[in-house]
């Protein structure tokens, strides 16, 4: 009897050493092929706890306040810069992420992570104008089409201070990360001037609205543009000549992560070309891995909404962490909204 108990106890102890490996991932909703998660678990034996957040800011507040114990998160560019600055991220041991070599060179050492020590790009895209070819008769190549009185109440703008103020700054020839008061005042005036022409300031529902033909043009993210064009062939996407915002969602490891090794394994897995391709096909956004891009449908490879030529991105910028200037943008935006 004692021998049996002893054996069981020993087996129990041994069992703890080979305990289930775990990983906690925090990502945008519907931003991964669910099968990929399942396959990762099968291949590595790591049990993944996968949660979702709605905006970068929601995630940031939770992480900063100490209310999260996630290992991997997938925030956007400006948020990553902020988190690095506030010491909320762990450095990634790139030796453990060999697939990083497969990332395109122009996507390495991006402005928000210059030494590329904290993040590995996951998806990227641009911001542009989507318009209905049947409803717009003028050529669309500049942001100022959104200020054209001919299309009054046929225009959708984004209900997001950075995006809307940003494109206005681009139209005026300034940087969309500026903190210059005079430039911001000009942008404010321009936005107030535009207000009577705007049908609505939209958030995520813009996709369905444009597919349904509710308006002639809208400002959208490139990934969504792909989806919209597929559903409504009358739609076309354009990156204006003044330049725009191009964005990245990258994988990071949060400070104090309890499963750093598993996190690096996960990041490596997601950057593997065959896995990345599956995610790209499920989500429909653009991949930073050239090998994946080459294996896609040639039509997609040429599509401005998916993979714009470098020349188009010449005067485009990535969002910077505005830190102290954030309040200025907020004030401008409030004043625009309050204006009659």
């Amino acid at each position, binding site marked *: 009897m004692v021998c049996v108990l002893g054996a069981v106890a020993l087996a129990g102890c041994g069992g703890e050493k080979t305990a289930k490996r775990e990983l*906690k991932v*925090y990502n*945008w*909703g*519907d*931003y991964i092929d*669910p099968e990929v998660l399942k396959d990762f678990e099968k291949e590595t034996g790591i049990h993944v*706890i*996968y*949660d*979702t*957040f*709605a*905006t970068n800011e*929601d995630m940031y*507040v*939770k992480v900063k*306040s*100490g*209310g*999260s*114990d*996630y290992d991997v998160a997938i925030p956007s560019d400006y948020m990553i810069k902020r988190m690095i600055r506030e010491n909320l991220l762990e450095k990634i041991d790139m030796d453990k992420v060999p697939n990083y070599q497969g990332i395109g060179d122009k996507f390495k050492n991006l402005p928000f992570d210059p030494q590329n020590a904290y993040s590995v790009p996951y998806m990227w895209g641009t911001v542009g104008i989507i318009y209905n070819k049947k409803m717009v008769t003028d050529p669309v190549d500049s942001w100022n089409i959104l200020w054209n009185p001919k299309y009054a109440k046929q225009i959708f703008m984004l209900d997001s201070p950075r995006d809307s103020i940003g494109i206005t700054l681009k139209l005026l020839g300034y940087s969309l990360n500026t903190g210059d008061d005079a430039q911001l005042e000009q942008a404010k005036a321009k936005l107030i001037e535009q207000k009577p022409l705007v049908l609505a300031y939209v*958030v*995520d529902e813009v*996709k*369905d*609205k*444009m*597919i*349904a033909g509710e308006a002639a043009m809208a400002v959208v993210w490139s990934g*969504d543009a792909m*989806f919209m064009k597929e*559903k*409504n062939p009358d739609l076309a996407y354009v990156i204006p000549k003044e330049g725009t915002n191009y964005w990245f969602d990258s994988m990071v490891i949060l400070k104090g992560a309890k499963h750093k090794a598993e996190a690096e394994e996960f990041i490596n897995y997601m950057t593997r070309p065959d896995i990345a391709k599956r995610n790209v096909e499920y*989500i429909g956004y653009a991949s930073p891995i050239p090998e994946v891009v080459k294996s896609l449908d040639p039509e997609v490879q040429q599509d401005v909404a998916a993979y714009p030529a470098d020349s188009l991105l010449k005067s485009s910028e990535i969002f910077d962490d505005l830190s102290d200037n954030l309040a200025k943008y907020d004030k401008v935006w409030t004043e625009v909204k309050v204006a009659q």
Partner: protein
Amino acid sequence: MEFLKRSYAAVIFAFLYIPIFVLIVFSFNASKSRASWDGFTLRWYADLFDNSAILNALYYTLSIAVLAALLATIIGTLAAFAMYKDMRPWEKKIVMNLTYLPVLNPDIVTGISLMLLFIFMKINLGFLSLLLAHIIFNVPYVILTVLPKLRQFDNNLYEAALDLGASPAYAFRRIVFPEILPGIVTGALFAFTLSIDDFVISFFTTGSGINNLSILIYSMARRGIHPTINALSTLLFLAVLILLLAVNRRVVRDKK
């Protein structure tokens, strides 16, 4: 007059249910977009059963809502009773104001302040913190629905019972409670309703691995809400409807 009443009620019910109907229709849409109809399909329903994230979220949503409603109703009813009977007028005023003030706060303020409170109290964020948060924001609504019934209740009956030798607990149970029951039930219904649809407060007070349906759905908003959610909502709706009809039939039969 009867016709007028019926038409009015019908219009109100139609108003309440039209969006639900739209929701159900789109659960059969082969397209992910609500703007294009790509044909009838049942695949979202099939996908649902394979989706452990949604099923998990469903489990937590329902369990939190039921537990929070139950506990908040108990706490709220007892509190309302205490407020009504045993508090001095000035005390009652302060307590009432303090109880209702949080209802005024935007969800973000409640969510963040509770999150900070829990972190400070070293309560690990998880199922319990989520449940506690839900109970906390539900209690004022229960009190709000129970108090009018207490007000309506004839105090003399309670006093008479006490004079006749009943203990306060007994008098409460046999006399007060049945009279205020409609208020209590309404309070419980409200608490359940608020819990089942809460996003912001839940997001900030929950822990890793514990999600409710609202968190799942709001997180999907940027990419477009997946029709599997419509399928789930439809099934939930039908389940509740059937349950309601079944319970009602039994109650009616019992009454006979």
